[in-house]
């Protein structure tokens, strides 16, 4: 019917094709513009982002002790390492490491090890923070879920986890205080 009503531009393109393309393009842009706020609303809200840094006082943590603090809903392992543990971590040759990283690159001060306490395999929290916990064959941390073992630098040494325990962004705000995030 109306398709045959002669509506053809000078170059031979039917006008309806043009209108269809323009309409489709506008609908596409419109749907995208509307979808954006919906998707963005699922990203962390401003009050969540406001909690994205955590201050930790290290003064009460004696040598050989560890504490676990929350940062972004995750456990952060903070350990005041003994000289023996530091020695153990630095004596390991890189060739023995699955995810080679020197201990020096994982700490800001030699005795303070700050890590995200989440196994890089499937997200369990490894044991080893409490004095009574099993620390695994490498004297660091041991994940009870699938048997990943970490050393005194939190590096993966045995088991299915692919990477070392992650180091969060943090900074020393004074000699005995850090801000994570």
């Amino acid at each position, binding site marked *: 019917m109306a398709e045959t009503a002669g509506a053809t531009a000078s170059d031979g393109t039917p006008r309806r094709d043009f209108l269809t393309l323009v309409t489709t393009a506008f609908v596409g842009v419109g749907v995208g513009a509307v979808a954006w706020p919906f998707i963005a*609303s699922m990203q962390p809200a401003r009050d969540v982002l406001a909690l994205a840094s955590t201050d930790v006082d290290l003064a009460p943590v004696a040598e050989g002790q560890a504490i676990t603090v929350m940062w972004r809903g995750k456990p952060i392992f903070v350990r005041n390492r003994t000289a023996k543990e530091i020695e153990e971590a630095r004596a390991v040759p890189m060739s023995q490491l699955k995810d080679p990283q020197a201990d020096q690159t994982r700490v800001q001060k030699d005795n303070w090890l700050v890590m995200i306490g989440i196994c890089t395999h499937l997200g369990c929290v490894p044991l080893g923070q409490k004095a009574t916990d099993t620390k695994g064959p490498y004297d660091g941390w041991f994940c009870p879920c699938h048997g990943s073992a970490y050393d005194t630098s939190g590096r993966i040494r045995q088991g299915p986890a692919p990477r070392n325990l992650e180091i969060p962004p943090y900074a020393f705000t004074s000699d005995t205080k850090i801000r994570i995030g």
Partner: protein
Amino acid sequence: MAIGLHNSDFKNPVIRWVDQRMPIFTMMQKEYGTFPTPRNFNYFWNFGALAMVNLMIMIATGIFLAMHYTPHTSYAFDSVERIMRDVNFGWLIRYVHMNGASMFFIVVFIHIWRGMYYGSYKAPRELLWMLGVVIFLLMMATAFMGYVLPWGQMSFWGATVITNLFSAFPVVGEWIVQLLWGGFSVDNPTLNRFFSLHYLLPFVIVGVVFLHVVALHITGSNNPLGVEPKGPQDTLPFHPYYTAKDSFGLVIYFIVFAGLVFFAPNYLGHPDNYIPANPLVTPAHIVPEWYFLPFYAILRAVPDKLGGVLMMFGSIAILFVLPWLDSSPVRSMRFRPIARIAFLLWTICFFVLMYCGGMPAEEPYVTISRFATAYYFAYFLVILPLLGRLERPLPLPESIARAVLGGGGPMPAGAVAKPMDKA
């Protein structure tokens, strides 16, 4: 073609493969592509499509709001404020949802008005109309419960007043009210169940809308002349004619909607609802949302508690029997000179009731409400039944094509006989 496959007309191999096994493409083409639609629709016929879009907007924004909302009396108000202040674009999603409810009622009121003016409720579309009334009731229940969720003063006291309506019923009243509350006053159990039902009912609406559309596609649409199409000369394929017309209306609708959301998002609300719910203090002037005002005015116009509640529910329930109260065979008010005036008066009464419902329960509003309420019911119960017998309608056009094309269009043999006969 293999045995058991649907005979598909589609050329695209992927679409064809699906269509042969599940002919949804054939169905869409039949119901929304070539679907024969009266050629003389005016813009009032946009509002069904607009209501459909509005429903989808409400469900989409509602699902995203529910991701951030907490249905607990201690957290509900704060979680809504958090949506407004902290959640990315939360203010936009909430304002769209909030004003979407108003837009939904504007659209549906016009849609219902259209049906009443052009006689769309008459045979053979009675069931289509009744399903529409069911949708309207579900919408009202959903909107009411949604308004309770922010747990502001108006939420709380609106919920208290509306649930107390049921206490008017003798014997079972108290029992029903306790059942609604889940306690001895509007409290946390009430909020919890209202949230649950507010999430459920829109999907029930989707189901009834589906039935509404199924019924529509059996009888076909009414049109401004109220004369059934008698052949292809009276109709146009739905696409592109009405997809285009609906799209244009949709753009206008979006402009109005956006104007409300971006420039006057709280215009249709009450400032009192930004005060957290307090069960010990009732706001000085409590009114429901604007779309409930006409019915609220009817409630207050009746000096008896049970009578008021029955009249209020009756004002909507009466729509169910409208197809049988209006005994005139002529659909469109264009050809009913007296009914047309009576209906326009009814429309004015509706707005008068809306105005009085928003005013304090004092004179002169109570008396005005009483007259308007009387006319509201008289239109259905006295005027329409009588006019069916007494009114002399104007001559109907022989066909849609005759009327809109000015005498042109070939008439199929036998189609001329009686204007009201179906094709």
